[in-house]
């Protein structure tokens, strides 16, 4: 049995399912924001903050950033285990990506709930 401790869930079926579901959520969020921008008569900070003042938009945004982190990690993990054969280099790149994704996650939480 092949094991890997750094994959997102450690299980191939779960990783695969998470990657697909998160892709659908990200696609829906992208379409939602694009349509919102196109439908807006005039772009302004008030309209933007008004959008994010609504509870369901906050929840949708957090769902999207969680999907982004999971989706990106599964993809990057796959690419690093394919191409980076040196263990030190691979682990360093993986840890750097985890750090960056963690920062994105915290900043998004802060932006949505902090204001």
């Amino acid at each position: 049995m092949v094991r890997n401790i750094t994959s997102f869930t450690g299980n191939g079926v779960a990783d695969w399912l998470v990657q697909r579901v998160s892709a659908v959520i990200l696609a829906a969020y992208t379409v939602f924001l694009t349509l919102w921008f196109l439908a807006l008569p005039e772009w302004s900070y008030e309209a933007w903050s008004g959008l994010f003042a609504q509870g369901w938009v906050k929840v949708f945004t957090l769902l999207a950033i969680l999907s982004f982190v999971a989706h990106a990690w599964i993809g990057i993990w796959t690419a690093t285990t394919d191409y980076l054969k040196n263990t030190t280099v691979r682990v360093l790149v993986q840890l750097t990506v985890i750090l960056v994704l963690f920062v994105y996650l915290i900043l998004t939480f802060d932006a949505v709930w902090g204001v």
Partner: protein
Amino acid sequence: MKVSVYRYNPEADRKPYMQDYTLDLPEGKDLMVLDVLNLLKEQDATLSYRRSCREGVCGSDGMNINGRNGLACITPLSQALNGKSSLVVRPLPGLPVVRDLVIDMSLFYQQYEKIKPYLQNDEPAPAIERLQSPEDRAKLDGLYECILCACCSTSCPSFWWNPERFVGPAGLLQAYRFLADSRDTATDERLAELDDPFSVFRCRGIMNCVNVCPKGLNPTRAIGHIRSMLLKNAT
């Protein structure tokens, strides 16, 4: 015609090189690539390659012909050239070269061994054969025909990068052949061996395997069926 062949003899050469040959072909005949190699062998007896049945049944002479994996014995020269004037022959990519066009297929066979390519049945053996309905037998069509030539697995980048951990298209086609067999009762055990992030899920569905299979089989579809079975079992 110019023929360029990958040459490497680990005992004599420091590194592999391409050797060019000029060959006079018989008029009015579309030779197979294997016939061309046999003519070269008459010129240069040191050239090494595997071949046996010379009719696409044994799977010995898988090689990379003008950039595409295939069996030399059933690849017509006209098809291999496809309008070009010279032929370039290399070993199947991704596995260690033993000599010239002969590769070491140990990793390929290890993956095949891993999927336990034989029927497992824990019920008492009947007095006659274990019978199958025609419908159940039909489920094995498109799976059992694989001759293990390795053209598919050695055209798969996922297998190039992780040949120790990704089973590869040939092994997975056979894994599904036993998962789909109504006479096999080890389905759960088989699936349990495949649900890690590498064995099946390293397949990204680029279908190089389908593109090169000399028998016209579809490993990507079989992998999709395994994925569905794993998903059904796990959710």
